[in-house]
């Protein structure tokens, strides 16, 4: 089912809103006025897409803002966190599995699902977790306009990045205006993003991607091409968001750093969808690992890290899509990280730190590692996207 409607940089609306933000927000010298104007731009952009449903979104944002205030003042803190967590999870499940809600044929259900898609609720949910956790840990709750600007930044709605709340809160209220060189760099980022998406990625897709229909030996080639295509397409969105953010004076984090040069799974997750892996590290991996270390009184560090990797990446898989495919994808990545971690520990034990340094400097090992990591990641992606249901033995399998 296609329900995708987003403020894509394909549309004129996106560029008009970027232009408006530069002209209006960019010139303001008061932090409050700037925050208010930016919130107006973000809500305005959403209004172009969801029309009257902006009222519902705004009410939701006000509710979040009030809840954060109450959490900060320790009023019914646990209850709010539990209720908020359940509500976010519920909305997330509806967003990821909309067919069930639509099948109920309730009045407005389709519009509701579309609205969740338009606001990019996957990303909003992660930002909600971030801000709730930060405020619960004692950080100042955001103002209403900051809540809007953090949760629904229009240039990051389509495909992130996922800004950390601390990163958002630490940016100056009135940032230094960019120099000509910085503005040119931002335009260059946008141009390279558009080139990546509309020239390279689209050509690759048009000529070589068949959704595995071609079959035969081409499947092996298509697994590689699909992975390259995904990087080009996805990182293009991030490049445009980054460039637009810089022009508007809105801090926007870097999301990709040459992931194909990764030499192992740990390195890969420091290069691919960086803001997601940092989110996972902050909000899942570290808390789980710390809890396990406490539980085991500082023993079994490797085993604890392995469990934390597994839990983190199974959840990461479910965040991408609720179902067995991405659960498998998450499990494969967890396996890659666990093996990598164990291998590093084994090498350290066997050849020592000096030996590891020599090992890392070996060009042949480096090339082989990069190829292996590329293939592993491409295969993991294929496990999540290959149309297994088209295979005769799959459909003929009883039950």
């Amino acid at each position, binding site marked *: 089912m296609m329900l995708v409607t987003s403020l894509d940089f394909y549309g004129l609306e996106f560029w008009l809103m970027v232009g408006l933000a530069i002209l209006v927000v960019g010139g*303001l010298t008061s932090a409050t006025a700037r925050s208010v104007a930016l919130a107006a731009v973000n809500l305005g952009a959403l209004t172009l897409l969801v029309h009257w449903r902006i009222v519902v979104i705004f009410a939701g944002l006000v509710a979040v803002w009030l809840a954060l205030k109450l959490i900060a003042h320790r009023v019914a803190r646990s209850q709010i966190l539990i209720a908020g967590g359940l509500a976010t999870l519920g909305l997330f499940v509806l967003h990821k599995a909309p067919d069930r809600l639509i099948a109920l044929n309730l009045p407005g259900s389709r519009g509701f699902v579309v609205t969740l898609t338009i606001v990019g609720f996957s990303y909003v949910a992660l930002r909600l977790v971030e801000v709730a956790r930060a405020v619960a840990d004692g950080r100042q709750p955001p103002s209403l306009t900051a809540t809007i600007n953090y949760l629904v930044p229009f240039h990051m709605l389509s495909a992130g990045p996922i800004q950390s709340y601390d990163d958002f809160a630490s940016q100056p209220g009135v940032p230094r205006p960019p120099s000509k060189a910085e503005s040119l760099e931002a335009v260059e980022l946008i141009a390279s993003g558009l080139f990546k998406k509309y020239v390279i990625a689209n050509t690759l897709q048009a000529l070589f991607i068949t959704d595995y229909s071609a079959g035969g030996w081409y499947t092996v080639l298509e697994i590689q091409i699909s992975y390259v295509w995904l990087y080009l397409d996805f990182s293009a969105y991030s490049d445009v968001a980054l460039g637009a953010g810089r022009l508007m004076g809105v801090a926007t984090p870097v999301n990709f750093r040459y992931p194909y040069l990764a030499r192992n799974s740990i390195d890969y997750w420091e290069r691919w969808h960086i803001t997601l892996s940092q989110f996972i590290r902050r909000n899942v991996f570290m808390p789980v690992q710390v809890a396990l270390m406490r539980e085991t009184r500082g023993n079994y560090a490797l085993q604890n890290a392995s469990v934390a990797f597994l839990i983190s990446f199974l959840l990461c898989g479910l965040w991408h899509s609720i179902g067995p495919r991405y659960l498998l994808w998450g499990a494969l990545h967890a396996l890659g990280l666990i093996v990598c971690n164990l291998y590093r520990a084994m090498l350290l034990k066997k050849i020592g730190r000096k030996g590891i340094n020599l090992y890392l400097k070996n060009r042949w090992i480096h090339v082989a590692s990069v190829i292996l990591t590329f293939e592993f990641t491409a295969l993991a992606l294929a496990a999540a996207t290959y149309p297994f249901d088209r295979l005769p033995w799959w459909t003929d399998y009883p039950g």
Partner: protein
Amino acid sequence: MYDPKRISSRVLVLLSLAGVLGLVGVGIRPIVGGRPSWLPETESTVDVPLYRKAAGRVLAASRELRRSARGAERLGVLIGGSSLIHGVDPTQMDTGAEWRWLSLAPSGAYLIDDCALAQLTLEGSAQPDVLVFLITPSHLAVLPGIHDDTSTFDTDELAFHVRRREWFKAQTDVANLMLIPWNVLYPNRTRISRYLRQMSFEAQQDVFHAMAFSRLAPYEPDPTPWAVDFPYPGAVRMPDGWMEFVYHGLEKSKLFEPSSYPANGQGIRSLADTVRRARGVGTEVILVLMAEGSEVRSRMPREAETRLREAVHREFGDSSPMIVDLRGSVVDDMFLDQLHLSDKGRNIFTRILSDRLRQVLFSRAGSISDHAAQ
């Protein structure tokens, strides 16, 4: 509170960029002369997603027929515009147990579109025994601006959408105001963009052909190639004001004007080419004039049909493809809007079409020249 100097560097950079792009654009226009010479005159209006869907349908049907005992089964392909989707349920076609019917319909009403899809069916591994074009004479019209950018500002469309409270469409209508300068400066931009997409679609087939795959290998096989869902199940008539809007569109396209039907238009040339190619691989072609409401029929100029018959006879003489006229075969009550049948009308027309095709297919060789001479 507001300091314009803060945005000066960004505005300067963006204006420079816009200036460069504008100069490049303005520079390109005189070079390409408005219409690039490499743009063919016979491009189809079918967009690539529809082509891919149709290709998937042909591929799945071919595979299914290949798996079954193909020698015993015969494949008929129905090609037409949106009236085909409304008008024929291919699974209910009763032309004998050995016949399977595959329906392909572009979202246009233009003979070049029909021919483009017909070419696709000839790429499948199971060659059809017969191609049936379900058209109206209006499919031959030379439609002014059919390839031009459709995002033009039209106050009537805006009023129509406002009356129907289709706010999203109304908003798009207003936004189209901004596209007017682009449309004036680059009247072929939609055409070029569509053509580039079509080129990449064909290039993909060439790439796979070069790798010794079938040309249709890249496309996802349709899991239910034989079925065509009815778009408005249970609907009896389109809402008030709909026909007014449809006629507005038809008048705007000058479909009711005799001058829109030249003796040797691109449509008829494409048809002739397709018939020759089909016959070259042993596939016969039948032209069926699709059922239409009485008002549309009465407003359609006589030249439309005359030109079709003349052109077919001129191109093929005694071996002309058969023309089966079913325009008046269904009463007005069975139409949703004079052009598209209701689901009840669809059942009736499917039966009528089956009966006629059965007669034709059983005595095909003899009847072709008879009908062409009519």
